[in-house]
């Protein structure tokens, strides 16, 4: 009997240790009741890149100095898009979070009343209108503070261009000419990451098939097809032509390996998202590189892919004091001088009025985007399931060396199959 008693006492002790240990942590995380004047909120931040995380950390530290009664805990997890979906699904919405307001997923969240309407907030007027318009919800309201923009462009190695006397191509013909020149000199013209074909597909489709996304939306709605569409056929041929000038192992290369190779001077050009800049800089701080839009046949038809990057939103389900604290933070972060600091630290182009971009070599692409033709990412008009399925279709086209005609047929099929009515 003695042993029994001993065992149960030990068991209870162990249990209570675990309980108290974890209970404490719990209180530390969620406890805004402990001190009534301090509000702690979680900030679910989706971008894992080191520079972006650091930039937010700095801004939050500054903010805390000004608002000692608000504690902002930034939380960045692996696979953030899916984790955030699961948190909406389980009604455990972070009070403050970043999300992609142009995407249909976000609009679905708005429709269900999960997200606070920010239309009447003064800081909304501080956002570049071109981008603000992209984020309008179906009811015309604004449910997030768009903070940065992104784009897909051709990054080029300035030194390699100068050494070989190559000018920035402004038409597709010039682009191919440049590729040929580099190839003849034994330099890989274009480093393609076809393992991550997705964004290459988006960038080339928007560049080479103006109006193409709208055509695909029609297919999804059961009206029409892209098969036999001349513009689409052009796009398919050009996309394949590009692979002729690419690295031999393109199909095994991920976007990050592409950034690494470009940083080490292994290729003259890459088609990259603006998000690649930070990694390239980290891998080789001395590389001089600029950017230009992927050119179409003429200067007039050249269109760049550009959209709103992760933007800040507030949960409509949060407690009033949490909402208040989150709003205070948004007001702070929307100030031009704060946005400027964030942009300088993160390397992301801000869209708060009154900021300038710190990178002189990349400024031209931003000027083009401000003044030229721009198209948003596909998933703001096409369901994201369709978009990701199209990535596989495109991979099949390139790997299996299908004909352009077959590719277009497959695009139609993929869209019809995955469209949710």
């Amino acid at each position, binding site marked *: 009997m003695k042993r029994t008693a001993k065992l149960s006492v030990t068991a209870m002790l162990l249990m209570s240790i675990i309980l108290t240990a974890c209970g404490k942590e719990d209180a530390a995380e969620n406890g805004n009741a402990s001190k009534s004047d301090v509000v702690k909120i979680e900030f679910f931040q989706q971008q894992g890149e080191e520079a972006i995380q650091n930039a937010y950390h700095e801004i939050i530290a500054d903010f805390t100095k000004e608002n000692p009664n608000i504690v902002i805990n930034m939380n960045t997890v692996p696979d953030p898009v899916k984790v955030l979906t699961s948190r*909406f699904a389980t009604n455990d919405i972070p009070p403050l979070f970043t999300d992609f307001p142009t995407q249909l997923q976000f609009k679905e969240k708005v429709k269900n009343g999960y997200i606070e309407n920010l239309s009447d907030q003064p800081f909304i007027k501080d956002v570049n209108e071109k981008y603000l318009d992209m984020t309008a919800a179906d009811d015309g309201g604004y449910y997030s503070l768009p903070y940065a923009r992104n784009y897909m462009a051709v990054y080029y190695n300035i030194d390699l261009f100068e050494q070989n006397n190559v000018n920035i191509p402004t038409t597709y013909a010039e682009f191919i000419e440049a590729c040929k020149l580099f190839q003849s000199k034994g330099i890989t013209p274009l480093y393609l990451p076809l393992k991550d074909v997705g964004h290459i597909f988006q960038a080339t489709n928007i560049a080479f098939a103006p109006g193409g996304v709208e055509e695909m939306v029609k297919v999804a709605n059961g009206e029409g097809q892209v098969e036999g569409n001349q513009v689409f056929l052009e796009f398919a041929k050009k996309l394949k032509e590009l692979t002729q000038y690419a690295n031999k192992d393109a199909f095994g290369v991920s976007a990050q390996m592409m950034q690494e190779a470009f940083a080490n001077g292994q290729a003259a050009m890459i088609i990259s998202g603006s998000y690649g800049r930070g990694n390239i800089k980290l891998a080789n701080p001395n590389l001089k590189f600029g950017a230009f839009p992927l050119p179409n046949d003429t200067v007039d038809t050249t269109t760049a892919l550009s959209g709103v990057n992760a933007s800040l939103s507030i949960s409509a389900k949060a407690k009033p004091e949490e909402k208040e604290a989150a709003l205070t933070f948004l007001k702070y972060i929307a100030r031009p001088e704060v946005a400027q600091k964030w942009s300088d630290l993160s390397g992301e182009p801000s869209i708060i009025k009154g900021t300038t971009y710190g990178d002189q070599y990349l400024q031209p692409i931003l000027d083009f985007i401000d003044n030229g033709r721009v198209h948003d990412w596909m998933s703001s008009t096409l369901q*994201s399931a369709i978009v990701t399925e199209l990535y596989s279709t495109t991979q099949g086209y390139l790997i299996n060396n299908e004909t352009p005609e077959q590719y277009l047929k497959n695009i139609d099929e993929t869209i019809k199959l995955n469209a949710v009515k």
Partner: protein
Amino acid sequence: MIGKFLERSTYFLFTVPAIILYTLFFAYAVIVGIQYSFTDWNGISSSYNYVGFSNYVELWNNPNFRDSLLVTGKYAVMLVAGVMSLSLILALSLNSLKKLQTFTKSIYFVPAIISAVTISLIWDQIFVRVIPPIGQALNIMELFQSPLAHPKYALFAVVIVNIWQAVALPTLIFIAGLQSVPSELYEAGRIDGASTFNRFRYITFPFLIPTITVNMVLAIKSGITSFDYAYTLTGGGPIKSTNVIGIMIYNDAFQNLKFAMANAESVILFIVIAVLSFIQIKLTRKGGVH
């Protein structure tokens, strides 16, 4: 009387914590999961409707789902074949080792202690940085790039990584099975002049059948529900050649706004596993020494 009552209540009390935890965190979740498979819930909307079996009907007509089932089937077959044959060979080899047996066994168990995520990341690096130089040196076209990039070889490459880890535990279980064979039988076999193969076939094998059952059930289940390796190594590509059902469910649930559909997919998976395990247990019951 009191003793009897105490005894019975002790047994009952023994089951209480398990029942509470299991019901709350497992059985209830399963029922809710099955229930969702009959709705049209997209995962984030605040309300949903019951739609009967329409998710299942739609899956039946969905070529993507069929392809994914096929990929999963191939994956499971390769995994089970690889794990079973390798672990049996290794167990026989290790068990007959006289010097350094414990040490060698310890090395062979190392892969089992490392997380799937870490293993996948390590092998990804090996595929990318080791294979292409070898391919170029030997001038084998297929190996110019990571096997993960090739729709023909990607699934095979993922399975190899999975096998690399999954062989360890069954090997130990087989060794345990081998050690349960009475040594007199071998002596008798040898005196009767039985060949090595015949000794294995008629003496060792029957004793191994229970361990084969255990290893098979576990290997089949892990093959059919596999997720980690393909997800980390390829994400399902290229051209969906490694899009196992686990990945499809995960993407549909959390990315494609098809939560109810994802649940229907996993219910089907449940049925497949249950049927296979049942057949397998029935088959192996017939022979073997217990």
